[in-house]
């Protein structure tokens, strides 16, 4: 069980996509969205992308590339995690794919243009690259022994020949695939 309180979520779609909204009550009130969207079928199983972001009041869309710094990150993260058991309740054979929007190869090029973290561009180190997946990996690494009692976890490597392999804590992955154990 997760000891960090979670915000109450409102299920707004339970069709092919599963979508939730909730309010983050930190420094400001921000409506946030969680989405499980199917994107690939393999071996009779459907892979769902877990997406998470803020509702932008000005253009009425959801954006996942801002850091809202609302002072309640732990509660927000706990809220996202809280929806995972709900997902597997109705999608026992399917899997959840997690990859940050800052894990794409084009992200580093875009980030360099407005770099505010004094990254060493000569050695192509971008401090913002993979930041989001690192939050998930940190949680998995910290709770690995408990998590593997309920879930089967794979990590996607970012090597020359990328591969989906059994998750080993502390190793680097750009994406994570999670199945529920039967």
């Amino acid at each position: 069980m997760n000891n960090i309180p979670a915000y109450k979520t409102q299920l707004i779609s339970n069709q092919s996509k599963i979508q939730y909204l909730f309010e983050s009550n930190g420094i400001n009130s921000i409506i946030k969205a969680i989405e499980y969207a199917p994107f690939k079928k393999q071996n009779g199983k459907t892979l769902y992308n877990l997406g998470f972001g803020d509702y932008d009041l000005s253009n009425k869309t959801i954006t996942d590339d801002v850091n809202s710094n609302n002072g309640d990150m732990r509660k927000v993260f706990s809220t996202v995690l809280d929806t995972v058991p709900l997902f597997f309740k109705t999608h026992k054979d399917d899997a959840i794919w997690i990859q940050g929007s800052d894990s794409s190869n084009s992200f580093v090029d875009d980030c360099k243009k407005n770099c505010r973290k004094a990254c060493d561009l000569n050695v192509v180190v971008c401090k913002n690259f993979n930041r989001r997946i690192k939050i998930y990996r940190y949680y998995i690494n910290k709770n690995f022994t408990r998590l593997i009692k309920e879930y089967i976890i794979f990590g996607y490597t970012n090597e020359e020949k990328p591969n989906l392999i059994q998750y080993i804590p502390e190793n680097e992955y750009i994406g994570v695939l999670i199945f529920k154990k039967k």
Partner: protein
Amino acid sequence: MKQKKPILKANKTLSMSSKTKEKISVIANNIKGKEFFPEKIALAKKTLSNLKTLPI
């Protein structure tokens, strides 16, 4: 026998005010039927495009 709660389930859920429920209901209507993160879906498809079989 009491069933053990899943590890990822939060032990406490913070309540939602009726004002928030109303706000969410309006937003839900605005974004009804939309895909929230089309770029993330494209990225996921691209990342796993070479995946021929699942490791499970």
